[in-house]
């Protein structure tokens, strides 16, 4: 069960699956039946032969040397990564029922992982060289950036025009004009190379269909979009932190250039959202020494899982560096010094009142923030009419759960974990309410993922 001091659970393995079909198929293969010649090495390579419908068994290898970026190779024809065989093999390995003994990797497995590791080393080299080359021609880079900024400016101006047209005619007409108008506007923003504006516009188009109170929500989002457009047009006048936030909200990529912070980062939660084209994976981390909460984003095209997968509940000894922008939780993963390992540390908890105050303060740096990461110290989930809330155990105050959180199975895991007693809950807290993502019982016990 323990390899390199790492203990993967079935949940952690299944979190790697690109879609639910692979998850199911992997689970079915996660038993000794179809497998032969399985094994795992001290370096973190797991291998095995899986009998499929054909005559030759598939050769499956997984390289877990870097547990935050596992690599997969399988001779099956599936184009999913990881394929069901790799998932099945890892499940078998994680179950630890001696089906995957420790051993010497066979040549076919060893060759691949050795080649892969050299390749990774080599790739790290040229990347640095590329960065240097870019820096060597600052004039060309500046010209490129200027051209793009001009496009975004044109897009922002057009968007501003559309918003004022809308307000001149009245939001009541927005319900009638439907999705088409917004889809077209979003496409214009994509052309203007402002993906941040494009996705906000697309969300705007869905608001008139969201039931009672939609005019309020639509006005809020229109106003914030207007604020963002105006912010971009006048970015020279903004303080540097806010200007960087505006740039990143508009969708201009900036490298994570913050100073690297080394800590033992506890993985609090990992969840995916998808808009049909792109899967976005959010991983929340908590620095067990620094007390800082950070967000890692990773993306995958439709049908492919984002590459980054971190085991919830384990801590990672690594360096993170922040993206520019005031109050930004987003970071990039730098050097990792050891594989993830268990830790008894939990994030410090706060009250519902302080959680909301924290959200309010964060809006100062980034008025477009929907939520901030928060750990509530002692709260009790309580039913509240049609919804649920998290009530402070020691005060008379509470936070409602977001509508989305109410309909997720994680809610019932949280209620069951609490049993009417206080629990510690990590989640996202904002103007729509609280979305629980992980929880701990009051006594000893591991983190329970809720997403």
């Amino acid at each position, binding site marked *: *069960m323990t390899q390199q001091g790492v203990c993967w659970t*079935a*949940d952690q393995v299944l979190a790697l699956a690109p879609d639910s*079909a692979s998850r*199911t198929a992997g*689970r*079915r293969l996660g*038993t*000794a*039946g*179809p497998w032969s010649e399985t094994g795992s090495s001290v370096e973190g390579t797991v291998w095995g032969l899986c009998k499929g419908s054909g005559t030759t068994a598939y050769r499956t290898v997984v390289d877990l040397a870097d547990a935050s970026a596992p690599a997969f190779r399988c001779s099956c024809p599936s184009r999913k990564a990881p394929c069901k065989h790799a998932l099945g093999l890892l*499940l078998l390995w994680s*179950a630890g029922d001696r089906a995957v003994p420790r051993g010497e990797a066979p040549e076919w497995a060893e060759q691949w992982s050795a080649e892969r590791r050299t390749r990774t080393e080599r790739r790290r080299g040229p990347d640095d060289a590329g960065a240097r080359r870019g820096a060597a021609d600052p004039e060309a880079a500046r010209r490129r950036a200027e051209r793009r900024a001009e496009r975004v400016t044109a897009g922002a101006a057009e968007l501003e025009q559309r*918003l*004022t*047209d809308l*307000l*001149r*005619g*009245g*939001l009541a*007409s927005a319900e009638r004009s439907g999705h088409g108008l917004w889809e077209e506007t979003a496409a214009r923003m994509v052309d203007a190379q402002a993906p941040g504006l494009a996705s906000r516009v697309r969300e705007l188009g869905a608001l008139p269909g969201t039931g009672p109170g939609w*005019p309020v929500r639509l006005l*809020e989002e*229109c*106003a*914030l979009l*207007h*604020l963002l457009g*105006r912010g971009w047009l*006048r970015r020279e006048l903004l303080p540097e932190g806010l200007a960087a936030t505006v740039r990143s909200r508009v969708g201009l990529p900036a490298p994570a250039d913050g100073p690297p912070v080394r800590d033992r980062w506890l993985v609090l939660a990992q969840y995916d959202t998808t808009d049909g084209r792109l899967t976005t994976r959010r991983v929340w981390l908590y620095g067990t020494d620094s007390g800082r909460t950070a967000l890692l984003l990773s993306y995958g095209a439709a049908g492919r899982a984002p590459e980054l997968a971190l085991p919830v509940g384990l801590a990672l000894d690594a360096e993170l560096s922040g993206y520019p922008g005031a109050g930004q939780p987003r970071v990039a993963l730098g050097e990792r010094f050891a594989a993830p390992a268990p830790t008894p540390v939990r994030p410090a908890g706060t009250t*519902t*009142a302080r959680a*909301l105050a924290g959200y*309010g303060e964060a809006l*100062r740096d980034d*008025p477009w923030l929907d939520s901030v990461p928060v750990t509530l110290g002692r709260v*009790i989930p*309580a*039913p*509240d009419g049609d919804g649920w*809330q998290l*009530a*402070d155990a020691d*005060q*008379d*105050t*509470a936070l409602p759960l977001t509508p989305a959180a109410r309909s997720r*199975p994680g809610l*019932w895991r949280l*209620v*069951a*974990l609490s*049993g*009417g*007693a206080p629990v510690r809950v990590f989640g996202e807290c*904002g*103007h729509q309410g609280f979305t629980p993502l992980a929880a701990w*019982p009051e006594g000893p016990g591991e983190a*329970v993922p809720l997403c």
Partner: protein
Amino acid sequence: MSRTTTAVDASLPATWEELVTTALLGTDRRTPAGSAPGPDAPSALLDAAAVETVRRRAGLRPARSAERPRPAPDDSRPPLPPAAARRLAMLLADRPGASGGGRRGTAPDLMELLPQWLAAANARGFAAPPAELPALLDAARGRTDLRPAALRFAGPRALWLARLNPDWRFALRSTPGGGASVPGPHDTEGIRRLWQEGLFAERVALLTAVRSRDPAAGRDLLAATWATERAEDRLMFLDSLRAGLRPDDEPFLEGALADRSRNVRATAAELLSALPGSALAGRMAVRAGACVAVDRTRDVPEIVVEAPHECDAGMERDGVLAKAPAGRGERSWWLGQLVEAAPLGSWSRRLGGRTPQQIVALPVADDWQGELHAAWCRAAVRQRDAAWSRALLGEPSAPEAGGPGAVSLAERAKLLGTLDAAERAEWVAGFIETHGLSEAFQLLGVCATPWAAPLGRAVVDALNIARDAGSYPWSFSGVMGLAERCLDPSEAGRLDALLAIPDEPENASPGAGGYWSEAFQRLVTTLRLRAAMLRELAPATS
């Protein structure tokens, strides 16, 4: 954004409402407060709305807390070992419907292992991990057969949870009293009140609980209110005496023989006949004995039967049903009931000191054998008489054991239930060796799990023979499924030789060899998994 400062200054609590109204109507129809009409009005409105939006969000305060649920009752059982907890999560994640359907291939059906897992966890007294309770309740919701074990394992917190979610209301129904506990043995007042005022289900649960602690006290409870109970309730209460029936229940049951309700009378008589020392059993022995005798005038002794000519009032009072069902002769109907209710021990005296074996072996004149042996079978099951069961079962290798004989397979299965587990397994193993698997399914169902070694070996050998004969494995899928659940995991090693794809004999069904290899692989995988499962649930030894 210089304009926003003035908007902030001008803001009133009503500002936001005003902004929303203006936005809905449009600035062409209504000029926003604090700005001039004209081309800049929409922009001014958006500026003001942006300030208000951020302001509203930044100024959010927590809500008043609603009424909190009462804390769940404590669960004092020890928590699962970590590996077992992970296994449970995996078994629960493999829901039906999650599968792609079609052929099962070599992967085991994890959901099928859940009942065993639950039984083992319950036997070892572990508590369920709270976070898994929702999945456990969902699983129990979909499968009623799983409910008793799942709810027992889920414990008090699951009932607490079920009160909060209508999807799980079944849990409250399935647990008598919705989890309200039966009063303790010394709470005589509580017991009396619940018995007098409780709902029917609560009263049945109470009677069962009291009777399991103190049979006499349970009977006294019942006797106290017997005369005032409704007929269908009397029947149900009487039926609850079946478990742990004792000789001192006889007077009460004798009284019930005079009950107004015919069904109550019949049940009382049936229970009395299961007490071989009872007066009723004695009366039945006399009546049955008068109908059956050995004719010694022939060269080979033979049983002769003279069925009763009438069903008199005494017989009726002792529970004999006078009216025969359609298609049955009255006299044979009465005979069957008399023999069924007579103590088996009386036959040896009546039939010349013979043993049950010798009696069963006697020829029976005039085609009465079927009727007589069937009645003895029912008596052996009711009186749980192993010697008679053994005699009636006969040799497992006898030709009539597999085919239509005096004793059907269903009756044999019931007779096997009266034997101890080892003898049962040995008999079924012998049966399979002679008659193969196609008839054995029913008999395997009554064998204790895990199967004893000789039985397991007989099943595996028979499967192997079926494979060599070239038939398809799904003709045996019932037995295969049972084997996955019941074969001793330590037998897995013996199956290794069967995993290879065999050369197909000439008359074999096409592709059968491959399917067999797959089926055996699944069997081995499942056995290994079961072994791992049970190991994980074992108490830590180090």
